[in-house]
């Protein structure tokens, strides 16, 4: 079996973001980068598939500048077999349609039985790429999956709906699955596996070789929302903060 996992490198969401010079995205300098949280579940699920069947080859794909290779190495250390880096210094500003076109162009003749993506990215959050890739490849896709099993030819999955209700579905491979938080427990790479990952194949190709779509959107502005200054912000010494808070709770609520 062959599996493809599409991952993205995103900034730590607790970063101090700044707007870039063109006012269309965040400034990518001086940020701490990590694997998109949803994609960690995707990598883990593919690696579990290999542990289940043995003969599963797991390719991890990531689009972005050279720095994304760090995130790819984490996926390789988690157990993916090989990496395909699509080098694109402007990857962060590409929308879901372009990103999906790149992935589909790469995957179209590779015969992947299963493709895993995160259900969305933490920075852009469009929740489109996985479904678009599947549609471009003519494959069925199941989104927002919190429970996954596969017997080799059929996937049984549970989609998470609002309120925690789940929809149980079945689909034959080849298929694409978008992974939701909590789908499994992503492993931490061990030191020996980090060492082993250094020897794994990690090829780079230029984005121009794979990009086939053009954006249908213009970003007019990227900005910080006006702060709803509802909250009283309290800073200072811990003991005093606690006293102040108790005072506020006594005054404003009936709970103490």
């Amino acid at each position: 079996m062959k599996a493809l996992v599409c991952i993205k490198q995103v900034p730590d969401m607790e970063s101090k973001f700044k707007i870039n010079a063109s006012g269309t995205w965040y400034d990518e300098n001086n940020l701490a980068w990590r694997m998109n949280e949803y994609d960690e579940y995707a990598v883990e699920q593919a690696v579990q598939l290999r542990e289940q069947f043995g003969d599963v080859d797991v390719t991890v794909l990531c689009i972005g500048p050279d720095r994304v290779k760090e995130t790819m190495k984490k996926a390789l250390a988690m157990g993916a077999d090989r990496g395909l880096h699509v080098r694109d210094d402007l990857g962060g500003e590409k929308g879901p349609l372009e990103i999906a076109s790149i992935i589909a162009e790469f995957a179209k003749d590779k015969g992947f039985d299963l493709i895993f993506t995160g259900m969305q990215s933490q920075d852009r959050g469009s929740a489109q790429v996985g479904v678009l890739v599947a549609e471009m490849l003519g494959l069925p896709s199941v989104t927002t999956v919190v429970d996954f099993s596969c017997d080799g030819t059929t996937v049984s999955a549970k989609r998470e709906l609002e309120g925690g209700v789940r929809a149980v579905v079945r689909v034959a491979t080849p298929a694409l699955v978008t992974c939701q938080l909590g789908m499994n427990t992503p492993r931490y790479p061990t030191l020996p596996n980090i060492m082993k990952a250094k020897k794994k194949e990690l090829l780079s190709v230029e984005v121009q070789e794979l990009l086939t779509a053009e954006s249908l959107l213009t970003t007019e502005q990227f900005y910080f929302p006006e702060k709803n200054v509802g909250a009283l912000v309290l800073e200072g010494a811990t003991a005093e903060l606690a006293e102040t808070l108790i005072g506020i709770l006594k005054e404003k609520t009936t709970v103490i």
Partner: protein
Amino acid sequence: MKIMIVGECRNGQILDATYENVAFAEKLGGDSFMFMVGTQAALPKYEGKLYLADAGECGEFNPEAHKQLILKTVSIEQPDLVVFSHSSYGWDLAPRVALALKAAQLSEVVDIKEGAYVVPACNAKLRRRLRPKSAITVVTLQAGAFSPASEPTGQPAIEPVSCDPSGAIEFCGYEAAEAAGVDLAKADVIVSAGRGIGKAENMEMIGGLARALGGEFAASRPVVDAGWTEHNRQVGSTGQSVSPKLYLACGISGSVQHMAGMKKSEFVVAINTDRDAPIGEIADVLIVADLKEFIPILTEKLRAL
């Protein structure tokens, strides 16, 4: 502008998201009509044309069939805009429809400004204003961003639509959410733990503060996913909705999905090291502090009262 509203029906019930989509269409102005896969037995309260496909025939969850039905309706009505909710139904279906229509898709729209669409980025810390370049546009709307001003009314004029219900994905049924062992809805005080607590052991500290306040403890999703507490204590769009007199959000950033479950709380206190955390937007008080230092001292002082 002609707007196609995609309604949602689950287990034979019209979902509120349907009426939020209607409210959005009304806000934009122009003609609208609705499409829904549902049943004659439960019709949406809507004054206008409703293209209705029978859920019994084509399945409540069958993305391929629903896509075909929407494309068919689009070809009859030629709308400029197709409106979904940014829900498990909408984000699954919208990209399928958008690609087939060569339409720009804007996900999780929260506002319209200068005729362009505003969507959140980076865990709601930032916003993007986007303008589509395509002839037809597909949007999904963030839950709660466009609420109906008044109780929906009306009787739709039904236009039946049907299609080939076969599809690669077999829907085997719904599984109910885990039953709640604790009734968070009844608690006056909820102390809620987020990923910022750092490790499972710190749940004890959260529980201790909850006891000192005579309340219950709860958690955001990552805390549940990590197995630090049970799912029936999760607050948010895929957990429980609560409205206590006091909600203490400890190390919770304030994602849309979390806030969906606690924004009706009477008084919200957030404890967070990041003074820019979006939780500050709905909190009454934001304590900028390390919860590992702050909570033990607060708990001690409360016990001494």
